């Protein structure tokens, strides 16, 4: 393959004088020291800073129902493996069957769990695992309600990344969500709500 061979040959030639292997200094903070409560509290604080609605509760399915109702959501898509204990009553749940984007667009919201979350940055990670479904379902509908277990919240970004490593190695697509979508492209003023779900509700289940 001429392109490949040529590029690799050029790279090789360019590095003829390169120093040896690099030792990456890893003195940065790679694990948190705060307790679970403090971590959860920081997570909630960061999410609120982004304009996400956060509910801390011992009854996630109840809270989910309340949140969906409050947002006026009637028909909500869920992954087929969303645990029944988390499924709210009083809302029509449509199990994802691989339907197209236009059909997803007609639904009022999505309800998912998550893979892991990060307190320092208010980030929720989705990797398609149990209760999360494929990426499209938490992307297309305008509302995303996400149930995060308290014990899924880690403190630092390095821990978040480490927690996702097995999924990455498995080839799972991963999405990191930190707030509803936004842009600063209009005179550098931050405007919320562009293409991703404009409303994000996070339910932290203690």
């Amino acid at each position: 393959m001429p392109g490949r061979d040529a590029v690799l040959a050029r790279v090789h030639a360019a590095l003829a004088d390169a120093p040896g292997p690099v030792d990456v200094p890893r003195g940065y903070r790679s694990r948190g020291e705060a307790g679970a409560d403090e971590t959860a509290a920081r997570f909630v604080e960061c999410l609120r800073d982004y304009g996400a609605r956060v509910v801390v509760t011992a009854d996630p399915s109840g809270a989910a129902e309340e949140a969906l109702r409050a947002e006026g959501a009637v028909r909500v898509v869920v992954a087929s493996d969303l645990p029944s204990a988390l499924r709210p009553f009083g809302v029509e749940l449509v199990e994802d069957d691989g339907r197209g984007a236009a059909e997803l667009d007609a639904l009022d919201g999505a309800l998912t769990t998550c893979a892991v979350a990060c307190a320092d940055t208010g980030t929720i990670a989705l990797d398609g695992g149990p209760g999360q479904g494929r990426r499209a379902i938490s992307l297309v509908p305008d509302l995303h309600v996400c149930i995060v277990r308290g014990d899924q919240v880690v403190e630092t970004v390095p821990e978040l990344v480490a927690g996702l490593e097995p999924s990455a190695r498995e080839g799972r697509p991963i999405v990191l969500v930190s707030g509803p979508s936004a842009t600063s492209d209009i005179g550098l003023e931050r405007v919320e709500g562009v293409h991703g779900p404009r409303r994000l509700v996070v339910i932290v289940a203690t």
Partner: protein
Amino acid sequence: MSSPARGARAESFPHAAPAALANGRLRTNLRAATTSIRARRTGAVAEVGDWEQLREAGAAIKDSALWRLDEALVELEQGVVRAGGVVHWARDAAEANEVVTALVVREGVDEVVKVKSLATDEIRLNEALETVGVTPIETDLAELIVQLAGERPSHLLVPALHKNRTEIRDLFRERLDLPGLTDDPAELAEAARLHLRAAFLRARVAISGANFAVAETGTVCVVESEGNGRMCTTLPEVLITVMGIEKVIPEWRDLGVLLQLLPRSSTGERMNPYTSLWTGVRDGDGPRAFHLVLLDAGRTRVLADRVGRDALRCIRCSACVNVCPVYRQTGGHAYHTPYAGPIGAILAPQLEGERGAVGSLPFASSLCGACFDVCPVKIDIPSILIHERAKAVRRERAGMEGLSLRRLARVFSSRARYERAQRLVRRLQRPVVRDGWVRRFPPGPLAAWGRSRDLPAVPDETFREWWERRARP
């Protein structure tokens, strides 16, 4: 004043700058924008207790990939292919455009949705697509604005920074046919949203760039705010990613460093709203086909320069651009390259082989050093600027300037010559000075000085003459 249209010939920086400087609205926009984004960055960084360690790690992570780039790229390729993706290698822009247009045409579509990608701007992919009858739809709000206006981006992160909300309103009113639109940012964003949503939902082919690609796992990463990146990398059937070869990083855990450095340095946030990470294709979730186009286009030339190669560490945060006092006055169009500001001044000349107008970019700096202070991967931009200047001088065999500076060096190399020169200047200046100031500037550098500043005359006694006089009994 209009910004350079697509297809406009590049001018050297000193020639392009005056028009930008004369544009009062641009300068007001720039001043407001850069002031606010600098403050946000400062705040986001101050919150992080281990920022300097993160910078050290970030620089080393990039170096560790760059200094064994061939191995890293092969490892990346293996990971992507193992996961069902296809990898293409492009030596230059033409080759990359050929590969991408062929893939698109094969799908039989007449439009593609695009996520912002500096690499695709660099190779002018949009023009190549239009040539084969395919309409590229830019989906980043700012890129959309710039596209509708028929202009080029003026900032690597906030491409429409040169436009304020009123200008955007007028543009949308005309090009999106929305006569009643106000300049309320929320309304403008909604207009863009509706316009693009239809495109997302029907698109079959998408083109993206990449912020990082992890060699260890074959994972490609796109960092964004609006959600168009997610739309483009999830909904279509075919995804084509064009990525500069310098974007590869060695290990998965390196993301833990870079995903802290990038959002805080660029938009001044703890984390950007969305980061998408995918490895090849995944059955039942996302595109059925993924093509990664690895782009050289001059990067190996940069890599070969022992000093200049540090520029390849760049993670495109634009912190340097936002803090640059030169950029603050002129904006990005005066640079005539997708990479404006300090990083552009060292990267663009090296990528393009220093020919043409880009050769003027390393001199478009006062060497103030603000960029180096904020660079999350510690690129010593001022030193590389000086290095590039030396290359420019060697290349141009600098006419008059070279002659004068070499003569001056000779004067400085001897006390006698130096003192003679001091006395000579003091004598020669007499016709043009009055009351201790130069009142008429001879043509050349002094005239350039004299356009905006007064210049003092050489006084009657130099310091060394005073010192000698003082020492005499």
